[in-house]
């Protein structure tokens, strides 16, 4: 059972990682990156690592998309 869970988590992480790279527009990539962070947190949790999954959830879903969106806002404003 846990083997099947880990296999599903691995495939999900690989698929969303590919999606992050293939999304060329940075604004859309911020959302795909948040989804990839969630997939990674699920993978870490199924590998029995609670501490790492906690860090990954907060960093991948909150800190990283916020920083990317603020950078995009600054860059977009400069281009006006």
């Amino acid at each position, binding site marked *: 059972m846990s083997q099947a869970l880990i296999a599903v988590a691995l495939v999900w*992480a690989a698929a969303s*990682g590919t999606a992050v*790279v293939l999304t060329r527009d940075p604004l859309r990539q911020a959302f795909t990156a948040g989804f990839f962070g969630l997939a990674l947190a699920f993978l*870490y949790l199924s590998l029995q690592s609670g501490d790492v999954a906690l*860090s990954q959830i907060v960093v991948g879903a909150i800190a990283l998309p916020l920083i990317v969106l603020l950078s995009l806002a600054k860059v977009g404003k400069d281009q006006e």
Partner: protein
Amino acid sequence: MSVLAYGVVAWLFLIGIYGVVTSRNLIHLVVCLSVAQSATDILLLEIGYRDGGHAPVFVSLPAHPGPAVDAVMQALALTDVVVGAAVTALLLALVVQVHKRAGTLDPDKLRSTRD
């Protein structure tokens, strides 16, 4: 199972590097770099995993708990995740300043010296 587990690590790393090389936007490049970095975290945790193992927290365990997974690898990976995010933010600060000076986010159009 080993092939799938280690194959996903190699795949994520290579596709992250592919994204960095073929990127046309510096912000997209930085996010692809963070994808490649997460591949190393996954490898650390996979090395420390054990079939039928439980998390290395020894409270409220059932009567016959199995073995625990590797706690040293988790300690390495957890600081890596947080510090990796801070370094990604540093790279994005660099990108913001590059855009101010060069006016473009395309790596191919950046010139090495100012006119």
